[in-house]
Each structure stands twice: as structure tokens, then as C-alpha cells.
């Protein structure tokens, strides 16, 4: 809004321009560079389609795209198929211990997917505990879940919580009068699920499915660990870029462009589907969980507990493993010991945890300040420039971490700006990755505030800037902080961009877990993961405490 006396040049305009400069430098420029490198011959400087040609010419390359799409579509569908009924079940039937179950579901979602991958390898891998038991009992030679099945298993169990959280939130806001109206018009219970509930949560289901899709599609650690011969696009791009025989920038760039094309396509497909059916509802009479009778009650409990059990199983395996005695390397020698913690947590000059926390906190600060400013500018100071800023913040949403990492190295590895190998480049990458989520949660928080509160402050003699800092920000704060905590948890479990950007000096927990797993040192990896999980749980509890809410938006 423009108030009287506001000149052509205001403080807000300088904020806008500053943010624009930051975005141009750290989002647009690296991405343009990726596009440029993908179609330019590095020696002659001429336009070339050679890289794209190479990708589509060899099955070794293009099959990764097919693999990626297959895995992602399967895992997304399965996540929706599990998450939606689970949410409905938990909202409509009284389940014992549902509070704890909710926390477990959220925790299983918050941990990085590749931790699930190596936990499942320990269970169902070639030498996995469960595999051995199965082979013993049935006298078969089951070789463990690797490749397609393994990846889909890990991703499904890791992603359905996201669908669950979203759909559960939508069901909470659904007005039960709609259900009752349908009932009074002669619609039976089973039929109401299809006629009323599914259509109403469909936009939410699509939105959360898109998040799952993006997450699964972009994930690098899981297929790397459990995929074995089954390569996906992020794995291919990582190998091409970091390859032992000297990375091929142009080809990696081309693969990045292909990945972005696919995510953009998906993004608009979801937009198209969801836009046709978005409803705002206020629950006058929310859905109430009712006690089911006899066998139904038992079945509901069995379903919920089994699903949640599978989801949280990797965490249990990891914590368990972290306490096992080993020979100091890859072999567990039986019994328990704190050895793994001595080698990780208490080891001298081990900065991993310190790094994780400082990098995380710094990027959170950046993302919160920028996020609040951008949402304020976009909502209250509508202009072409500010709408453009709002749109640019959505870009990182569709850019996988590894692509962003590669783009950053293209852009900041050589003068004029050299940032590669520094902590700053990681902080900025984390901040950019989280920007879309923070801007959205800030916009939501701002949407709750009526402009008249600000106008009241101004009428009482406060300047606009003062109003912003003394009225708007304090009122927005709870919502923004809640979003901030969730961003923090996501940042500390980030792997895909940091694996490309890190150096030994600024290694984080997730990178350490990953490298320890690659080295086969599961004990140390588990100790690191346990610390990470503990951090997530504590952050989650802080979130609950701060917001007083029991539901989460990510």
C-alpha cells in the first residue's frame, strides 16, 4: 500500500533493489550460467547441442532419466496411498497414543532419506539381519533389496509422512458439516470418503505429492547408497561433475538443465491440477475422532502402528547401531560400547557438529530476515518489482540441491567472485534452498494480520519503518519462528548441495554420515545420525513449545 507523502524513493524501494541484487547474483546468475554452459562449446565458444545429444544418444545416460521418473512416480504414488488413508484414519478414529505417533511420523520424515537407505541395508541388505533370518527360515538366497525396490522402499517410507502431515492438516480444517450434510442427503459412510473427503483434500494431496516428487526426484544419497547399478539423474550428474577422470562441466550442465526442465514440468502440472480445485474452508465443527467398535478398533490400531513402526524403524536401527561395539572400523564384535561416540562426538579437533550448528544458524538468520522482508514487500507494497521478487523466490523450489551446488561452483569458482570452498558459499546455498518455504510461511503469517493494525500505528504517529519493526514483525514473529525452526531442521539434514560444495574444513553432520557410510564405518555413521536425530527431536519439541500447536507445516 502506498501512504500519502510516500515519495518516489522510499526505504522499501531500496530494500527491494538490494534483495533483487542478491537474487540476481545468487539465483539468476548461477542458473543462467548452467544454461549457458550446457549449450556452449568451451573451446570454440560456439553454440552446441552436443551435450544434450550425448545424453540422449547413450542408453547409459538416458536410462537414468527413465529410472528417476520411475522411482519418483512409484514412490510418490505409494506415499500418497499410505499417507492419505493414514491421515483419515488418525483423524476419524480414536487411536491410543496418537500424540506420540504424530511425533514419530514427523521425526521419520525429518531425517535425511539416505539414513533410511543405509538402515534398510543393515536390515534387508545382502548381509542384513532380516535377510539372513529370512534365508535361514525359507532356505532361499534372497540377495537383499537393492536397486529399484530398495530405493522405492526407502523413499516411500520417508515421504508418506509428508503427505500425512499435509492431509491431516487439511482434514483438521475441513468442516464436518459438509460430511453431515452429505449424510443427511443419504450418502453412506464409505461413499462420503469418495464423494466429499477425497475431493476436498485433493488440492492438499496434490501439493504434498509435488513436494514428495521434488524431494524424491532430487535426492542423491539414497540411490547412491542402495541403488547399486540402478542410477538416477542426481547420481549421474554428481558423477559427471565430480568424476575421477576430471568432471565434464558442459555435460553436467546439460543434465542439470534436463533435471530442471522435468521439475518445472511437474511444477506446472501440479499447478494446473490444483488450481482448478482450491477451497478455503473454516471448520465450524471439525472432524472428531470417534472410538470405533471391536474389530474395527483393532484393525485401525494395527494399521496405524504397523505403518508408523516401519517408518520409524530406520531411526531405531541407527540408534541401536551407534551403541554397538566394533573393532574400530567396519566390523561389529558383539556387545555394546560408547566407542562410536568417542570416535565422533568426543574426538579432538572434530568440528563437524560445531560446523553444522553455525552454518545452520547463520543461514537461518539470512533466510528469516530476507523471508520476512520479501513477504512484507510482496503483500503490503505491491509493485511489479516486488511481485517479481516473490516469483524469483519460488525458483529454488524447483531446483534440486545438487543442481544448485553445481551452479554455485560454476559461478563462484573463478574471479570476479571466488567463494568456492568457503563456509559462506554453503551458508548462501542453504539459505537459497530454504527461501521459498520461509517466504511462504511469512506470507501466511502476514496474511493473518489485518492492515488496519498497521494503519492504527501510523495514525498514532509511528513512522512506517517503526510500524514495521514495532508492530508488524512482533505480530508475525510466532509464525515466522515456527517456520524458522522447521527450516533449521531441514538445513541441518541437507546433503545434496553440500556434498558438492563442502571442503574438509566445513564438513557437516550429514556429510560425515554419508562419508562414514561410504567407508563402511556404520558405527560412526550411526553415532552422527543419532546426534542429528536428537537435534531434530529437540528442535521439534521447541517448535511445539513455542507454537503450542500439535500440527506442523513444512
Amino acid at each position: 500500500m502506498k501512504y500519502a507523502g510516500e515519495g518516489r524513493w522510499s526505504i522499501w524501494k531500496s530494500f527491494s533493489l538490494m534483495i533483487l541484487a542478491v537474487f540476481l547474483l545468487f539465483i539468476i546468475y548461477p542458473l543462467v550460467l548452467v544454461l549457458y554452459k550446457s549449450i556452449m562449446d568451451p573451446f570454440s565458444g560456439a553454440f552446441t547441442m552436443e551435450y544434450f545429444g550425448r545424453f540422449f544418444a547413450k542408453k547409459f545416460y538416458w536410462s537414468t532419466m527413465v529410472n528417476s521418473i520411475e522411482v519418483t512416480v512409484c514412490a510418490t504414488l505409494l506415499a500418497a496411498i499410505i499417507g492419505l488413508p493414514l491421515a483419515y484414519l488418525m483423524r476419524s478414529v480414536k487411536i491410543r497414543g496418537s500424540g506420540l505417533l504424530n511425533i514419530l511420523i514427523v521425526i521419520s520424515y525429518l531425517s535425511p532419506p539416505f539414513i533410511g537407505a543405509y538402515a534398510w541395508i543393515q536390515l534387508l541388505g545382502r548381509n542384513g539381519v532380516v535377510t539372513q533370518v529370512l534365508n535361514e527360515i525359507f532356505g532361499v538366497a534372497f540377495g537383499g533389496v537393492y536397486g529399484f525396490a530398495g530405493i522405492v522402499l526407502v523413499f516411500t517410507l520417508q515421504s508418506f509422512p509428508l503427505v500425512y502431515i499435509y492431509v491431516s492438516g487439511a482434514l483438521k480444517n475441513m468442516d464436518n458439516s459438509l460430511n453431515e450434510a452429505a449424510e443427511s442427503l443419504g450418502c453412506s459412510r464409505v461413499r462420503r470418503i469418495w464423494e466429499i473427503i477425497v475431493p476436498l483434500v485433493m488440492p492438499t494431496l496434490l501439493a504434498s505429492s509435488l513436494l514428495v516428487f521434488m524431494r524424491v526426484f532430487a535426492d542423491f544419497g539414497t540411490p547412491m547408497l542402495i541403488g547399486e547399478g540402478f542410477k538416477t539423474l542426481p547420481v549421474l550428474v554428481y558423477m559427471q561433475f565430480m568424476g575421477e577422470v576430471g568432471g565434464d562441466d558442459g555435460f553436467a550442465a546439460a543434465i542439470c538443465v534436463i533435471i530442471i526442465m522435468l521439475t518445472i514440468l511437474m511444477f506446472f502440472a501440479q499447478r494446473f491440477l490444483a488450481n482448478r480445485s482450491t477451497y478455503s474452508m473454516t471448520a465450524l465443527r471439525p472432524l472428531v475422532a470417534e472410538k470405533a467398535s471391536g474389530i474395527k478398533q483393532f484393525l485401525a490400531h494395527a494399521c496405524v502402528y504397523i505403518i508408523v513402526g516401519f517408518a520409524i524403524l530406520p531411526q531405531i536401527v541407527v540408534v541401536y547401531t551407534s551403541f554397538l561395539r566394533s573393532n574400530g572400523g567396519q566390523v561389529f564384535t558383539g556387545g555394546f560400547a560408547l566407542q562410536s561416540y568417542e570416535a565422533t562426538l568426543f574426538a579432538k579437533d572434530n568440528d563437524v557438529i560445531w560446523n553444522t550448528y553455525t552454518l545452520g544458524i547463520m543461514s537461518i538468520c539470512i533466510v528469516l530476515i530476507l523471508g520476512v522482508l520479501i513477504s512484507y514487500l510482496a503483500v503490503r507494497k505491491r509493485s511489479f518489482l516486488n511481485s517479481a521478487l516473490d516469483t524469483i523466490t519460488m525458483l529454488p523450489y524447483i531446483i534440486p540441491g545438487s543442481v544448485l551446488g553445481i551452479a554455485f561452483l560454476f559461478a563462484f569458482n573463478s574471479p570476479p567472485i571466488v567463494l568456492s570452498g568457503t563456509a559462506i558459499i554453503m551458508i548462501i546455498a542453504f539459505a537459497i534452498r530454504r527461501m521459498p518455504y520461509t517466504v511462504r510461511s511469512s506470507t501466511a503469517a502476514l496474511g493473518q494480520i489485518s492492515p488496519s493494525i498497521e494503519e492504527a500505528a501510523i495514525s498514532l504517529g509511528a513512522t512506517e519503518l517503526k510500524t514495521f519493526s514495532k508492530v508488524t514483525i512482533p505480530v508475525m514473529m510466532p509464525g515466522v519462528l515456527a517456520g524458522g525452526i522447521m527450516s533449521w531442521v531441514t538445513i541441518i539434514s541437507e546433503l545434496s548441495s553440500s556434498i558438492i560444495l563442502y571442503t574438509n574444513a566445513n564438513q557437516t553432520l550429514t556429510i560425515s554420515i554419508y562419508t562414514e557410510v561410504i567407508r563402511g564405518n556404520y558405527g560412526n555413521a550411526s553415532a552422527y545420525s543419532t546426534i542429528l536425530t536428537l537435534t531434530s527431536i529437540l528442535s521439534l519439541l521447541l517448535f511445539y513449545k513455542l507454537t503450542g500447536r500439535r500440527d506442523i507445516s513444512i
Partner: protein
Amino acid sequence: MSVSIDIDKVIKKYGDTVVISGLSLQVHPGEFFTLLGPSGCGKTTLLRMIIGFNSIEGGTIKIADRRINDTPTDKRNMGMVFQNYAIFPHMSVKENVAFGLRMRKIPEKDIETRVDEILRVVKIKHLENRMPTELSGGQQQRVALARAIVIRPEVLLMDEPLSNLDAKLRVEMRNAIKSIQRQIDITTVYVTHDQEEALAVSDRIAVMNGGIIQQIGTPQMIYQRPANVFVSTFIGLSNLLDAVIFCEADRKGIVFEFGYRVEMQNLVPNVENAQKVCVSVRPEEFIMVEQSEEGIPIVIQNIVFLGLHTHYFVKTDHGQVLEVIQNQENTAILLDGTRLSLKVKTDKINVFHEKTKGTLIKGETK
């Protein structure tokens, strides 16, 4: 063919809390019956028991002599209009209205004609392809009504349907609802906390408080001859004054404070001399007379001119503030501070027992 509703000693409990204990009432075929009471009085609970969203812990509810206690809602064939309309947001107006018919597996062709017909009745035919978000509150209300009645329910239930509308629309819609109800001749139970709305639409009203029916009667009866002090103060405005009974030979009446005596013909026979009573006088049941005449002596404190009427806030010598309404034509407007006497319209006022708060007027309350 419209049906009757027979509610016999129904009980509603939430856990151990009894919300309704043994409530009975009958709704006649085709009647527009209103449950009126303050929030939390159990009126919505009762309505939800009739439709089946609330279980019944005791007693029976019969529709046309069929016991329906254990019939699931979707088999009851009742139409309901919800407080927030509960329009399905993912369906157009037409689809919303057709929903119940589709559930009944009515052939597509018949659905078309019936939806068409009902949309004309509620006057929203031109909006049939709109989505609910494109409708105003009043239009949504009409969709909700059409959707409830198109299934030709035996009973129509409405839960505070007008409470989300602005004042002017509320009056317009209540007239519409009333005339549509007349037109299709359907037994209707209507829940509201708005007494004016209840008086305007109902054939009969049940006034409820604390899960108990205080009085059932026509709007006129409930307004003019309330069964107790609660009804008298909940419906319309009432000034409550202390008085005592006098019985002398064949004359009975009441004496107000300040010695103002009024003889009454319609007191119940068993009143006793010097019995304390509570008298309810509506603002329009006062007559303002000169200070010198017999009556309750008062001073005018405040005057509110409302065009049709003028409201006077007056104070007795004991400090009680009373509200008096005078028609415009009567006199010129008086000034603040004027001293006057108030008389009452003897045949209009109501007298209640001091303790039981029940009426002491001869049986006209039913």
C-alpha cells in the same frame, strides 16, 4: 403428505453430563415448529438428535409413528440446512442440489427436472452453474435450502440458518423460507436464538432453557401469556416489578409498591391475600398519566425517539429503571426530568409466583 414428529421423554448424555433429561414434544404434520432459546439451552442438541448426528440415550423419537432412534442418518430421509450452509465447495450449485438425488439413484433425467424445478422455487435458477465461492451469503442460503428440500424429505430441519446473514437479508430470507415452507407443505423444525425471527416464522414455538422446555405455544401466546418469568424476559422486553396480591370478597388484584392498586379478573383461584408476586409489564403495557393521578410515580430520565415509537427510560422513587414505549400519535414528546405516574393495562400484564416463577394467570398459556 406431511408427517408428525413425536418426541417422547428423550435423554441426551455426554459422558456423565445429562444435557437433556426426558424432553417430550409433538410437531404436527406440516407445521413450522421452532426451538427457541439462549445458546447452550440444548436446542441444537435436540435437532441433531432428530436428524441422527447425536445418539439418543433414552426415550423415543417417532416420525409418522415410526421409531427412528437407531436408523442411520443417511436412511432417515430428512433435509437439513446448516448454520454455515455446508455447501460442498467442490461442486457447482447444480451439483450441490443434485447430490442427494444422485445418492438416491434417481434417473439422470428426473434429477435434471427436479433440480430445475427446485432452483426456480428458491429463485436461483440463473446461478445453477456457479461455484459456491461466487455466491453471496443469501444465495448460498438458497442453495442449502434447495439441496435440503429437493430430496423431498419427510422433515426439514434448520439449524440457525440465518445467523450468518446481515440484518436486512435476514428479514428477506426468513420471509422466503416461510413462504417456501408453505408452498411445499413440509413439517419443519427450526432452531434459532433470535426471538424476533422465531415470532416471525413459526406456527408454534418451544422456548427452551437448560435442556428443559419452558413453554410451547403460538408466537402470540408466548409473547402475550408467557408461562414463566424466563419466557417473559427472553421473548421481548419485560419490566419486572414486585407486588403483593390482595383478595377481598369477590375482588382480586395486585398492589404495587407506592400503594398503586390494580384489580384483575384473570388471576388463578388459589392466590392468597398478601402473597408476594413478580409482575411483568411490557413497555407498551404502561400508560403515562399526570403526576397527580394514581399510579407508580416516576421521573423521566432519558428519551429515545425511534420514529414509530418513542422509548422512555424512567426511574421510580426506589431507583428502579423501567422502559416505557408510547406510540407517536399519543402526545408530544416529554422532556427529561418530567415527573409522571404510570398506570398498567390490567388485562395485558402477567403475574408470576415469587418463588416458582410460574404464571398466576388463568390457563391461557397453552
